[in-house]
Structure formats: structure tokens, C-alpha cells
């Protein structure tokens, strides 16, 4: 029998690290599983810690918050209070009859195996499962992509992918870049590219302005964001990067790889409203917001809803509890809202779980430290480390702490963060009519090479009036990525063809995946040998 933890936290990004640290400091027995080799998630992705350089923190916001959380995590790990399993992905999550949760994991990167003829290669099958009484799922999200002519050319990348190469590998994906799509995330990507020495030919923003700066709700909700945005504006100005609003990339041009983009001014609905312009580039970084990763919550049956930005997200209550008893969800999977909100949600889920398990915190001092810490994640990228890391020592010694007032403070912070996120989403919507001028030849699903014309045919001739039927009849989302890349777009096209807005019902069939990541049949088969007696037997 594997050891049963109090809680397994999945994901070591802002929400997950905060949740794991907070839960362990509250005295819970914690397992933390993360796909990456080191903590930080996408937001605080960084170069190999063993070969860190001071400039690796450049472009990071709330870096001291992260290092504070990380230091606490390592202290807790070394003290045996967090079983930290980096470099592993959960492929199957099940709820057991006893009410516990069993997660099956597989290494993110598989060790090469001798695979000659006659070699069974069974050595890696049947890795120990991770079992816990509760789950805090912090799976994060990834770049939302929209298909348009040329988006599948080499040199066209997700903005987050460009950023990941920079932060994680100090690698520049091109020399002359255009950054396009919508939302504030385009700015750090452009800024990061410029800092790293690329020429950024333009930032192409589909919506009107940096409106969330002027939105009274948004500005009040996240004061730090104003400073952050001012820094980006300064970077853009210093590097003479044009910031073109109400403009979209209509096509990416090139023979075998990206050579230029064709942009056009658009009106409020996304209709062309000006002459086209060509901009030479060898790299296009594209971002239309983010899509939460819902594989694990959906596998466990958690209820979902559609968020302001149109994404399918997990429904949680004011203690981060999903509809499934014992399953807490924090971070982007409950609604895209950024790192500071994610940290708060991670903390709240841990505090709420600790309270539910009867481990109320006893040291309010730790909590106050952590509160300040969280605030900093949404604040300017100030130099120097804050004192957040001292709390780990304190609580590691005293074994925990939180009070109802502490929970209320985090809840208030989350409410402010949500208001800000909603204002941001309303400022940067994906243009409702984005499929309007898609040529039939545009590839929508790259894995299965399904074009927009194929989808139109399935709708018009075969009666596919919803996304699931479209997927069944034309195969978008049926390939390698299982709809991770084209899912949002396919749902949007299904609705567009049917003359309506996409609904949760359109998104759902393209969001659930079992297994959560591809896994060798040998690994699945190994469960049969250990879990079940085989009644029929071959």
C-alpha cells in the first residue's frame, strides 16, 4: 500500500507552490507533483537553478515572492514535510472507494531505454501512485491560439512558447519579431525579446488601448499593475517598438518559413477598417489569452462554467472547493487572472483544507508575512529579496497557523483580483467575428490537418451544429494534442458556423482528456497486473 498523504498538490507554479508551502506549514502531510524540473510554473519559469545568473530574474515580476516561496518549499522538502516530485506528469486521477485520490504519474522526460529486438523494456512500467485524502489542483494554462493563414509556418509560435525559450533556456527564437494577438501578456513578451537583443518590429494588439489602466475597477483592484504597465511602456519606447492597437495579423507570409506578416486595422467587431501593411519578420509570437488546463478536474467530475474571457474554467466556491468533495482548484484553472491571484488562491485552498481537516493555524504572524508576500507578486519588480522566507523557518518550527481573519483577508484579495481579471478580459476580448474571413484552406487542426473548409463542409452538409459533432465528423482535436491547441478555435468555429456565441457545451468536449497526457500502453497495462484480478484472462 502506498503512503496516504493529507493532500496532493498538482502543479508547482504560483498557485501550486503557494498551496504546498501553506499546507505543509499548517502541519499537513503534502505531496507536490510538477511536470517541470524546478518550481515556478510558466510564470516564474527560469534557467537551471544550479547555473543561475543574476540577469535570469530580468523580466520576472514578483521574483522575490517566488524565491521566498521556493526557499520555504525547499526547507519543507528537506525536512520531509513536502514530498516534492518534479519532472512528473499526472496522467490519471481517480477517486477511490475509501474517498482518497490516487494519481498515476509518468516521467515528463523518459530515460532512454535499450529497445532492441527481444528487449521487453518493462523497467519503467508501474511507477508508484501518489495517494492523498484531498487534492489541490493547480494545473495552470497555456496560450490560446487562433488559426489564420500562415499560423502553421515555422517561425510562428505561441507567445508563451517564445517566452519559455527566453526564460527557461536563454534562447532567442528569432532576430526580427512581430508580437500579435491581444492582452497585456504581449508586452512582457515584446519586452523580453527586445532585452534579449531581438528587433521587435511591432506589437499588434487587436483591441483599442491599454484600457485596463483607465478602467477604474481594474486600476483600484490591482494598483501594482499600473507600475508594471508603465515599465513596459518605457521599454517599448526605449527600443522604439511600435504598438499598433485595433490591428490584427491577417496572414503570415513566407515560403516554408516566416518572412513577413500582413496586418490590417480593424473596427470594434474585428472587421477590416483600413489598408493592409506588410512587416518583415522571421518570428511571430501569437497570444490570444490563455486556455486553462482542465484535464484533471474534468477527469474527477468537477463542474465547470464559462468565464468572462470565454474560457471553460472550474467552478469553485469562496474556499476554492470544486463540486467534487475533497478537490480544491486554484490558479488559472478557476479563471485566468495572473500570478498574484493564483498565489492567493493557492494559499486559500491550503488554509481552507487545513481548517477542514481540523488543523487551524496558530501563528497569525506567519500569515501576515505571507500576505505581504502575495501583495508583492502583483507589484512592481523591485530589487532585493523581501523577508518572506523567514516565515518558513518560523512555521516549520511551530508547525502551522491561520485564523478565520487570515482566510477572510485572502478572500478579499481574491475578490479584488477577480474584479481586476474581469476588467482585463473585458478590455481584451477575442474579436467575436474572428472566423469571418478565414479562407477554406486555413489549417485549423494541425495534428489531423483539418482545414476550415473541412469544418464548413461538416457543418453545412453533415449537420454538425456543435463542437462535439464537428470533432466526430471532421476530426479536429483528434490528433496528438487532443485539442489542446485547436480546441478553443474549434469551439469558436462551431458556434460561428451555427450563428451563435460559443458556450460551455462547445468547449467541454474539447477540454476533457483521459489520459491527461499520452502514456505508454505498458504503463496502463501494469495497473491491471497490480490492481485487478483478471476474471476473463487471455
Amino acid at each position, binding site marked *: 500500500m502506498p503512503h496516504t498523504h493529507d493532500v496532493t498538490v498538482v502543479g508547482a507554479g504560483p498557485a501550486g507552490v503557494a498551496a504546498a508551502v501553506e499546507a505543509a506549514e499548517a502541519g499537513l502531510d503534502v505531496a507536490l507533483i510538477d511536470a517541470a524540473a524546478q518550481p515556478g510554473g510558466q510564470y516564474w519559469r527560469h534557467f537551471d537553478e544550479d547555473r543561475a545568473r543574476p540577469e535570469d530574474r530580468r523580466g520576472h515580476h514578483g521574483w522575490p515572492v517566488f524565491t521566498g516561496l521556493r526557499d520555504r518549499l525547499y526547507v519543507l522538502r528537506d525536512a520531509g514535510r513536502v514530498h516534492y516530485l518534479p519532472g512528473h506528469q499526472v496522467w490519471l486521477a481517480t477517486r477511490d472507494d475509501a474517498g482518497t485520490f490516487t494519481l498515476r504519474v509518468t516521467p515528463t522526460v523518459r530515460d532512454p531505454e535499450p529497445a532492441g529486438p527481444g528487449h521487453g523494456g518493462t523497467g519503467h512500467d508501474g511507477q508508484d501512485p501518489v495517494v492523498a485524502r484531498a487534492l489541490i489542483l493547480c494545473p495552470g494554462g497555456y496560450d490560446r491560439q487562433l488559426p489564420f493563414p500562415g499560423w502553421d509556418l515555422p517561425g510562428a509560435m505561441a507567445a508563451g512558447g517564445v517566452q519559455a525559450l527566453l526564460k527557461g533556456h536563454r534562447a532567442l527564437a528569432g532576430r526580427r519579431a512581430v508580437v500579435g494577438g491581444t492582452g497585456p501578456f504581449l508586452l512582457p513578451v515584446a519586452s523580453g525579446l527586445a532585452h534579449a537583443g531581438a528587433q521587435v518590429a511591432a506589437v499588434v494588439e487587436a483591441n483599442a488601448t491599454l484600457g485596463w489602466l483607465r478602467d477604474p475597477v481594474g486600476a483600484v483592484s490591482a494598483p501594482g499593475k499600473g507600475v508594471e504597465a508603465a515599465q513596459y511602456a518605457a521599454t517599448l519606447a526605449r527600443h522604439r517598438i511600435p504598438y499598433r492597437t485595433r490591428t490584427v495579423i491577417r496572414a503570415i507570409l513566407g515560403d516554408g518559413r516566416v518572412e513577413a506578416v500582413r496586418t490590417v486595422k480593424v473596427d470594434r467587431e474585428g472587421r477590416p477598417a483600413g489598408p493592409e501593411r506588410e512587416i518583415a519578420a522571421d518570428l511571430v509570437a501569437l497570444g490570444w489569452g490563455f486556455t486553462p488546463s482542465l484535464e484533471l478536474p474534468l477527469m474527477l467530475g468537477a463542474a465547470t462554467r464559462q468565464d468572462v474571457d470565454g474560457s471553460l474554467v472550474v467552478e469553485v466556491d469562496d474556499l476554492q472547493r470544486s463540486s467534487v468533495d475533497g478537490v480544491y482548484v486554484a490558479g488559472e484553472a478557476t479563471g485566468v487572472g495572473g500570478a498574484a491571484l493564483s498565489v492567493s488562491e493557492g494559499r486559500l485552498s491550503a488554509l481552507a483544507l487545513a481548517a477542514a481537516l481540523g488543523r487551524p493555524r496558530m501563528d497569525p504572524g506567519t500569515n501576515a508575512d505571507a500576505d505581504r508576500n502575495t501583495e508583492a507578486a502583483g507589484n512592481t519588480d523591485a530589487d532585493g529579496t523581501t523577508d518572506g522566507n523567514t516565515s518558513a523557518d518560523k512555521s516549520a518550527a511551530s508547525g502551522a497557523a491561520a485564523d478565520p481573519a487570515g482566510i477572510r483577508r485572502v478572500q478579499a484579495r481574491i475578490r479584488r483580483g477577480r474584479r481586476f481579471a474581469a476588467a482585463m478580459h473585458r478590455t481584451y476580448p477575442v474579436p467575436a467575428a474572428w472566423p469571418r474571413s478565414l479562407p477554406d484552406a486555413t489549417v485549423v487542426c494541425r495534428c489531423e490537418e483539418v482545414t476550415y473548409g473541412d469544418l464548413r463542409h461538416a457543418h453545412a452538409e453533415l449537420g454538425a451544429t456543435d463542437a*462535439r459533432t464537428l470533432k466526430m465528423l471532421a476530426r479536429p482535436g483528434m490528433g496528438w494534442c487532443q485539442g489542446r491547441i485547436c480546441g478553443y478555435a474549434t469551439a469558436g468555429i462551431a458556434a460561428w458556423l451555427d450563428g451563435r456565441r460559443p458556450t460551455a457545451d462547445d468547449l467541454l468536449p474539447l477540454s476533457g482528456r483521459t489520459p491527461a497526457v499520452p502514456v505508454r500502453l505498458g504503463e496502463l497495462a501494469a*495497473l491491471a497486473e497490480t490492481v485487478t484480478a483478471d476474471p*476473463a484472462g487471455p
Partner: protein
Amino acid sequence: MSTALQGAGPGPTLSRSADLVIVGAGVVGAAAAYFAALAGRRVVVVDRGAIAGGTSSAGEGNLLVSDKEAGPELDLALYSQAVWREDLAEHAGLWEFEAKGGLVVAATEHSVAGLRELSVHQRASGVEVHDVGHSALHEYEPHLSKDLAGAAFYPQDAQVQPMLVVAHLLRLARGLGATVRTGTEVTGFLRSGDRVTGVRSTAGDIPAGAVLNAAGTWAGEVAALAHVAVPVRPRRGFVLVTEPMPPRTVRHKVYAAEYVGDVASSDAALQTSPVVEGTDSGTILIGASRERVGFDRTVSVPAISTLAAKAVALFPMLREVRLMRTYHGFRPYCPDHLPVIGADPRAPGLWHACGHEGAGIGLSAGTGKLIAQALTGGQPDLDLTPFAPDRFTDRTQDAEEAVS
């Protein structure tokens, strides 16, 4: 399309009445719609969801004769084979019809002997069977385990992409004047005395000369609206889908001899027997599990892991192949494993075509044609008596409840 009608309450009569309302836009409803429209009938198909939204989109697209013992279901399967290959021959490419053949493999000499015995009776019913010895196995399937004793090859076994079957049959039916209303739920029946004279639906009343219940696993609920009992129950099955593999990695529909026994079994507990086959898109599909757990949609680790283990036992190379996706569905299952096809004497005007269990894709073409023949007053090509809707006695239903 139906969206314009959504939200309309029951009551108002649609301007257009029909000769036949078909409840259920799955493969059986689509086949019936096509053949009835072909016979000149005005057909309206209604479904509360989308087309092929239930079990039709949750299987593997089997057109099998190999897994059936001699009897009425095998007769229907053979008849259906003829309909697929003759009546529907010109459309076969639309739904990726592939006469790939089925290879039933046996691990022991004892089970080879069982296969040979089964094939004697199948041949007598008109099934083509080739005995395959141990030494010839790898000519059929190069990647098969070396540990198998023998096999039987069934050249008539074929495969289709079932969702495309449904979509194109309905498209062809529309071309013949049929109407398809998705997102329209039947809420009751119009009656004149005992007689069924149409349906009530969320899009209004639809008067009709006859109503066909083709609601698959949910057919019992539809029948209950007409106050008749049709004992169709769900029998859950999982299918595993691998990453795309090179063409002809698995050439035929390959399954283990035990599958025949599992299909015919009434056991409620989990049964798994490996069924492995390639598809046009390169993925390999692995079925088939059977368990009676109601409409439970949670993933079953015992079911999917046992499927994987048994598939790997048949094809050792699959151990290193990655699983991309699993899906599940609910076979419409009757206590005697036979479908329900024909007029219901308990409710004149109501017909049924449901309860085809795991064979509905294969049996749909024949079922649709037979129903159309019977509905238009003709003598069906095949005697429908074994499939009579009122064949279930209270006793069989009680026994069914007892094992549920």
C-alpha cells in the same frame, strides 16, 4: 435548423405532419430514415441531442459476423452485410467502409477447438470462415504474439466510421425529403385511443402516421412515455485509442476467442476481451469491456488497464505505443441479447428499432431496410418474429431486475 424552434413549449402543431417520426438520430434511426425516405415516406427525425450523439459515436464501427453464434442475430447480421455491400455500395466510400476481415485468435489448443466448433455452425448459416493454423498467423498479422495457438479468419467482417455513416445517411435522407430536428426532445405521444398518432416534443407536436423508437440505450424511457415496457439497459464499454501508427500495423479486426463468450454473457461484472484494429487515421482502437453499471461516466481503471494488458498480450509491440485517448459508451442491451425490431401490438402506430447492444452499427443497415419494408406494408425480407417488442414476459424482466 432546430435552433429556431428551441424554447417553444409543447402544444402548437408544426405545420407539416409526417408519415413517420423517428425518435433518435443515431445509426439505427438514420438507416431507418434513409430507407423509409427512399420508399417515399415523409420522415421527420428528432433527437434531444446532436446527430450520432449517443452510442453511435462511442464504438468502433464493427460490421461483424464472426462474433455471432448461429441464430436470429447472425441471420440479421448476414442480411445487414448484404445491405451494406449492395444497397449502400455506392456510398461506401463516404463512411470509410473497409472489408478488412476479422481474425479471431485463440491462445490454447482447447480454445482453437472451440473456435472450430463455432465455425461449423456459422458456416451452415452462410458465414465464410477460414481456419488459420499457428504457422500461418503471422502472414495475417506480423506483429501478433508468437504464443497463440491458432485462429479463424472471417473475410466478411468489415469496418465503417460510424459517425460518418449517421451523418451521410441523414444527409441522403434529407435529399429525399426527410427533416432532421436535433435539440428536440420527445416529451410524450399523441394518442387516439390506444393508437399512437405522433409525438409531443420540446419543439411542438408532430402528428405522424407512425412513430419509430430508435432511441438506442434510452429507448426504454421513450417506450415508457407510451406506457409500454421495452427492457433496454446500458452496458458500459471503454475503447482505448493509440497514437497514429504506420498503415497496416494491425491489418484486420483482431480479437480473442473469449470475446464471443463475453458478448453472449449476462454477467453484470466487468468482462474484457481484447479487440484490436487499425483505422484510416492511423490510430489503433482497443476494445472491448462490458459491465453493467448504469450510466456511470467515470473512468474505470480496472476496465482500461485490463484492456491494455490484454491488447499488449496479443500484440507485444503495443507496450511501447502511447495511449492518446479513451472513450466510453453505453450499449443498448436486452436480456436475451437480441434487438427489438417491429410494430408494438400494445400501442398500435408505435414501432421499435433498438436494443442492438454492441452490434448496432453493423445491424443498422439491415434493421433500417427491414423496418422500412414492414412500415410500408410489405413483407420484410427477414422474419422479425424473434425481435418482437412484446416477446419479453414479466418473468424475463423480473429475472433481469434481479441480476441488475
